[in-house]
Structure formats: C-alpha cells, structure tokens
C-alpha cells in the first residue's frame, strides 16, 4: 500500500470567481502524515474537496491521485444525519467500489469488523439518527476503513468529540499511517498537530508555509496567516498572476 507522491501545483479553487484556495503548491510524500491548519475560511475544506475530485480546480494541477484511490471524511454538517438508515447500511457504502448499485457485497463480515474496530460493537442495526455526534463520527471512520483507500483526507475529524472518542479515532489514523497510507487532515487543535503530525501545511487561501510542523507553526507564520485571511476586498481585481 504505497501511494504515489501527491503533487499540488499552482492550485486555485474558486467558488464563482472568489478563490477559496489561491495559487497553492505543496507536496505530500508517499505515506506522509500532514495536518492542514489555518483560520476559518482559509480554504481547507475546498482544498480537500478538490483533492477528492468533488470540486474542479479553476487553475493548477493535482497529480498523484488516481480515481478510486482517495477517501474523504466530510464534515458532519454536510450529511443528513436524520436519514432512516442503519449503521450497517451507512458503513456498507464504504464498499461501493465492490458492490456498486446492484452487486451483492462479498464478505459482509467485514462490516461488523469495521464497526468493532471503531468501538461500535453491536451497533449494526441501530438507526444512524439515534447516534450521538461522536458515535456518528465513528460510523464515518468505519466507512473509511472499508473504503481501504491509499490516500485519506480528513476534514476536521476530531471536532466536538469527547477525549475518549478522539483518542480512539486518532488510534485509527495512526494505524493507517503505519500501513503506509498518505493522510491529510484538517485540524484546529495545534497541540494535537504538534504531537501527532510530523508535517503541516499552513493555509490562508494561499499557502503560508509547508514542511516540518514545528517550523511551520512558528508565531510569525501564524500571524501572517491571520492577516491574510482577514483581507477581503469588496472590489477585488481579476488575478493577474502568471497561470503557468
């Protein structure tokens, strides 16, 4: 399970004409474990969505991510949590690549195993609507486990979780890292980032810094990131930067 190197070059992701990610370039080494840090509105989610193929870049390139090789953990707010679905069925969608719209699922015992692995033993028949935020996040992690992708993108994976749940799910991330998968995670907890993530990308629409976590998270860089994100021009001109 060695994914190729991911090379993001001169990437601009825009909503309408407003860039959420602006001329960003960075590299994620095979098997790398990188945190994405930045203020709200810095384009972190947009970056992940572009890398997952959900949002076409306006400019620039993302290399090294083949279709079906990437799995994204979305923010919970993007999902309909009241949907009438059992945990088992929600997790089952992780095997979409094998089951598709019609086929039966080979080795369904994997679903139970994935639920066990995220600490949800016996939850298979529970409706997802009855879960707490933490339990729901565990379900999404179980789905990621089944997707078994070499590249994993996590959008705020530990937000609003209790310490125990966060620790359990962090254990899953460590396991993925040990298996050699490339992981990119949007995080706000800088202590956690310093402790667990060797590399960090500091983002404020533009890339502020990327590299070893301690160096990237210097006070100077963080101040620069804050200044950048607060700059919003009502009458911004068209960007004249060289597209190359």
């Amino acid at each position, binding site marked *: 399970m060695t994914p190729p190197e991911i090379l993001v070059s001169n990437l601009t992701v825009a909503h309408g004409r407003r860039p959420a990610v602006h001329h960003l370039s960075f590299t994620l080494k095979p098997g790398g474990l990188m945190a994405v840090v930045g203020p709200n509105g810095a384009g972190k989610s947009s970056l992940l969505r572009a890398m997952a193929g959900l949002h076409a870049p306006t400019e620039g390139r993302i290399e090294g991510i083949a279709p079906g090789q990437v799995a994204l953990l979305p923010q919970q707010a993007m999902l*309909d949590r009241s949907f*009438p*679905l059992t945990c088992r069925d929600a997790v089952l969608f992780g095997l979409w690549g094998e089951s598709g719209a019609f086929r039966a699922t080979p080795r369904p015992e994997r679903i139970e195993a994935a639920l066990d692995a995220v600490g949800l033993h016996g939850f298979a028949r529970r409706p997802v609507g009855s879960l707490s935020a933490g339990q729901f996040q565990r379900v999404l992690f179980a789905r990621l486990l089944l997707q078994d992708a070499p590249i994993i993108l996590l959008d705020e994976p530990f937000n609003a979780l209790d310490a125990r749940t966060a620790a359990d799910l962090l254990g899953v991330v460590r396991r993925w890292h040990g298996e050699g998968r490339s992981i990119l995670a949007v995080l706000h907890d800088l202590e956690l980032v310093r402790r667990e993530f060797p590399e960090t990308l500091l983002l404020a629409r533009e890339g502020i810094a990327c590299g070893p976590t301690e160096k990237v998270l210097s006070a100077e860089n963080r101040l620069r990131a804050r200044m950048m994100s607060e700059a919003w021009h009502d009458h911004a001109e068209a960007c004249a930067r060289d597209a190359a």
Partner: protein
Amino acid sequence: MLWDALIAPFAEFGFLRRALVGCLALCLSAPPLGVFLMLRRMSLTGDVLAHGILPGVALGFVLAGLWMPALALGGLAAGLLVALGSGALARATGGREDAALAGLYLTALAAGVTLISWRGSAVELTQLLFGSVLGVDDAALLLMGGAASATLVFLAIAWRPLILECFDPSFAKAVGVRGSVWHLGLLALVVVNLVAAFQAVGSLMAVGLMMLPAIAARHWAREVGGMVLVAVGIALAATLIGLLASYHMDLPSGPAIVLAAAAAWMASLALGPVDGLLSRYRPGRHLEG
C-alpha cells in the same frame, strides 16, 4: 351483505374493476416515489408537479376533447417541463428553487383552469381536476400499468444510488454516482405516475396517493425499505376503501381515495411508534439502557 358491500360493485361494473386494477398498480409505484421525495425534503414538489401537468392536460383537452392519449401526452410534456425547468431556472437566475417552483405551479394551475373553462363545461373541469372512475378506459388502464411497471424497474435499479445520494451527496459524487441523473429520473417518474393517475383520481388528487402514504409511513418504520412497504400497504387499503366509498356514497373517486389515505396519515401521526404524538406525550417508562 358483505358481498354486496365489498365485492358486488367490482363484480358488476367493468369500469369500476378497471379503476381498481389501475389504481392498485399505481399503489405499488407512487408511494415509493413519495417516500424518496419526502426523504429529499421535497414533499411539496409532488404537489407542484401535479399542478404543472394541468396546462398540458388542458391543452390536450382543448385540441382533442376528452381523448386519453392527447391528455396524457400534454400532461407528460408540461409536467416534465416544470420538473426540469424549475431546477434550471433556479440555477440560471440564482434564485431559490422553491421560489421558482411556486411561480411555475401557480402559473400552471391558473393557465390550466382557464384553458379548460374556456372550452369545456364545469363537469369536465371537475372531472379533470378531481377524477372520475368512469374515465378509466382500456388506454388509461394500460398507461397506469405501464407507469407502475416502469417505476418499479427504475426503483430496482436506482435504489442504492438514490439512498446514497440522499444521505451523503458528496460521498456519492466521490464514488462516481451521478446523483443528478437519478434525481431527474425520479422526478420524471413522479410526472409519469401523476399523469397515469389523473384519469381515475384527477390531476390535483393524484399526488395524494403518492405523498400521504409516504408521510404516514414515516411514523411506522426506521428504514427506507420498511417505509416503502408500509406506504404501499396504506395506499392499497386507501384505494380499496376510497373506491367503495365513492361507489356507495356517490362521491368523486379522487377525493374519496385521498381522504382515506389522509385518515391513515392522521392515525399514523397519532399512534405511530416513530415520532408519533402518542409516543411523545405518553412515552412509557424510560428504558434500562
């Protein structure tokens, strides 16, 4: 006695038998569509589309009188136009889709009623709006059976993609499910079912058979599959009761069927175990864990 009340009407009258068979067929297809509309928070869209087919039906009526193929084709064209047009209009003008839908269906209803009143009698207007079992001829029966069959085939194919697309559209897109295709297929079949039903229950009432069993079923099941089964069951019972009531008490068939479904909905609202009023105000003692 029981024979006279329940069986004799259908044994004696061919038109009533045709209406029963046609409506039962649609009971298998329309409520599942209603369940998916409800899950997508589009419960009112069915209503909008039902109004949307009216000007098409009216145009068919003006051109060809009460001739089934013209009415159905007109209704189909107008309904599809509203279904596809509202989405496109909302995207193109940056407005909200519900605003576009409201504008379209009010226009459609007014245009439809005006057209029918212009060339038809009050009786014909009532028949087109609220249905008449007498209107179910062999062509209508074929249309109802065909619509039901096509819908069931579609649902068998689209079942998983539709559920995934409702639950987590981003994930669906990421794994290559073309959500908009299934969504448009769903809307198109809603139109087809409404057009097929309008002869028997009327264009305004057809949507009742689709949505009422679906929203009632929500109170009985916690999974999509269970909801669909309950919805179909409610629709079948409502159709049987509605048609018999219509025959015995000389009521228009559409409102009779919809009222029967509405009774099932109210009962579900009160008694259903999932979010029902009774379970809310008399919850019983809390559980051990």
